[in-house]
């Protein structure tokens, strides 16, 4: 085991040296081609690593994310301005596997930059590693607090919960005259836990009475005990920080039990799958999201049509975010004119007023998102803009 470890370390170090050597050589040729980039012959091509949750309980996210990326890749490469090669690795939602995947991409695949990993939990481990190696990394679904603050090379294009939850809660309070709330959250996931922290802080800030705080774990299927307790306390609103798989089942069981108050969910709760799973029980869910598939924007409709045709189901937020994510990368790559990691990082940081399918997007100085979320609610079995 220790020999193996040593070998790994050695190979990591040696490949870094190799990389440094390549980087030096690459710079010269790049500066030569930069001038010709407009001429058409100098198409910048780059390997982009992807770390995605492709197997295990959250594989649905990974599937959406890689689908979004593949679609974007196809379109970007067809345009011919840049050529992107995706190297997709599975993290299985595990920190250690995500880290191994990242090390492989950074050291032996020599990727220019990385998209992913899927979960904020994973990003907490992978982000510092990428930052240390000087590889730009962007999460397209990492919405927990403090992700872009992990390092100079860490970015995200997913709207943080801290922005989304207050927006949806504010609208819900105005519409339903909410005074008392119950909170329900998954306590074994960084995303849902950070969502809970935001919910609790926001609810306290807005002077709401928190009747009870209940928890559940990933993969649980019976929420009746928690919901019965919540029902007996009679809240005006339920704040549920859950991923959509659990969230949809929670709503289904709640409605069956006769709980008919609205639910406010976090980012992970926002997916058309909620309607698929819970059916009518999904009515009354309120979420704030950067992504709204019904938006009357030709770009959005075009994406939805293409995605649906290619993959047989409507894209969710995760597909849209990764799709936009790769476009942002392509833009940065074009501006950098080179697949060098540092040049790419600087070009990425300068992205602002990017018009994607999510809306007008910019990075702030920390690499975090600047964007206006839309508040949606499920009504009559579909997502609609919330304006009551």
């Amino acid at each position: 085991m220790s020999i193996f470890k040593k070998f790994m370390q050695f190979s990591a170090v040696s490949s870094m040296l190799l990389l440094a050597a390549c980087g030096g050589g690459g710079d010269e040729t790049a500066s030569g081609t930069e001038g010709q980039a407009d001429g058409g012959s100098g198409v910048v091509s780059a390997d982009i690593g992807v770390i995605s949750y492709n197997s295990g309980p959250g594989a649905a996210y990974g599937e959406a994310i890689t689908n979004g990326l593949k679609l974007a890749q196809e379109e970007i490469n067809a345009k011919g301005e840049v050529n992107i090669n995706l190297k997709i690795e599975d993290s299985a939602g595990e920190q250690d596997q995500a880290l191994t995947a990242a090390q492989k991409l950074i050291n032996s695949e020599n990727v220019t930059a990385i998209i992913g990993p899927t979960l904020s939990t994973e990003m907490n481990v992978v982000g510092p590693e990428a930052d240390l190696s000087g590889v730009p990394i962007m999460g397209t679904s990492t919405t927990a607090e403090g992700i872009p603050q992990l390092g100079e090379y860490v970015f995200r294009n997913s709207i943080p919960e801290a922005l989304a939850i207050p927006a949806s809660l504010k609208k819900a309070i105005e519409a339903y005259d909410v005074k008392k709330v119950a909170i329900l959250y998954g306590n074994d996931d960084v995303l849902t836990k950070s969502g809970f922290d935001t919910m609790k802080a926001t609810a306290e800030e807005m002077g709401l009475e928190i009747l009870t705080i209940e928890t559940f774990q990933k993969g649980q299927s019976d929420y009746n005990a928690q919901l019965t307790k919540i029902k007996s306390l009679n809240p005006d609103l339920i704040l549920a920080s859950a991923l959509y798989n659990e969230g949809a089942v929670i709503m289904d069981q709640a409605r069956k039990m006769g709980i008919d108050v609205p639910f406010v969910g976090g980012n992970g709760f926002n997916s058309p799958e909620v309607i698929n799973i819970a059916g009518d029980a999904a009515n009354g869910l309120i979420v704030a999201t950067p992504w709204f598939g019904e938006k009357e924007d030709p770009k959005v409709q075009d994406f939805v049509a293409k995605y649906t045709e290619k993959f047989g189901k409507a894209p969710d937020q995760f597909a849209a975010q990764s799709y936009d994510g790769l476009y942002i990368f392509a833009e940065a790559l074009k501006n950098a004119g080179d697949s060098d990691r540092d040049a790419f990082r600087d070009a990425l940081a300068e992205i602002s007023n990017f018009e994607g399918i999510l809306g007008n997007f910019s990075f702030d100085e920390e690499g975090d998102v600047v964007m206006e979320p839309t508040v949606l609610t499920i009504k009559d079995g579909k997502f609609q803009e919330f304006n009551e």
Partner: protein
Amino acid sequence: MLIEQLINGITLGSIYAIVALGFTLVFGVLGIVNMGHGEIFMFGAFIGVLVTTTFGLPLWLAFLAAIIVTAFMGYLLERFALRPLRNHQGSNHLAPLISTIGVSIFLENLSHHLFGPGNHPFRTPFAEMSIEIGSVTVYLVQIVIFVISLILMAALSFWLGKTKAGKALRAVAENLETASLLGVDTKKYITLTVILASAMGGIAGILVGMAFNAVTPQMGLSMGLKGLAIIILGGMGNVKGAMVGGLILGLAETFIVVYGDSGYRDAIAFIAIIVILLVRPQGLFGQKTSDVRR
């Protein structure tokens, strides 16, 4: 609220009990902890989803299909994961445990591949039927689950204790070679046991699908671990122990939410098990002698 929670607890406990019955049957006869049981249970649930939701066929057909498919899976499990190991002289008694873990991983990934990730809704009008008693709503599914678990337990106790086949099965459990010498077709009875246990897992799968409307490829794992905990709690290989253990775990999990903190839901169940095992190492209904199994 107390009565509603009691119903929640009994429902959950009954499901645990049915899963545990499958475990205990295989353990009682073969002395094997079948880690693949949870995944067979999950397949039962998926067959239910396929039949009722995807094809829109009636519920009884779903039960039938699930029983047939899971029974067949039980046969395959015995044929390919257990029998080859049993026939090997000197193979370690842990080997079947590992091979069933392999089966469980294989089945989880297979269902992921076949049915896709994420939750699959279980839509059947039966799951919506309920009766109101005062302010308490009781779903028909909840009653059915409880009744089925009782019937299965009673039938299993009767079958094992009173019928000839049951006697043969107990003889096999006592000593494989002696039973074989006395003219019991051991191969047949072992296969039958695994098939029966698997079919019970399939039934439990459908019941869970209906009760909670949540079917995922991962549902087998946690249920399998709970089932295992229950048979340790109730006494390995004991039918009544599985039933009582299941109900205790279900009620404990529910009432920790009512009176304590829902974050400790899983913890309290396992703490209870540790405590009981400290006091009664053989489990609630287990025999004190350890010569039942080799």
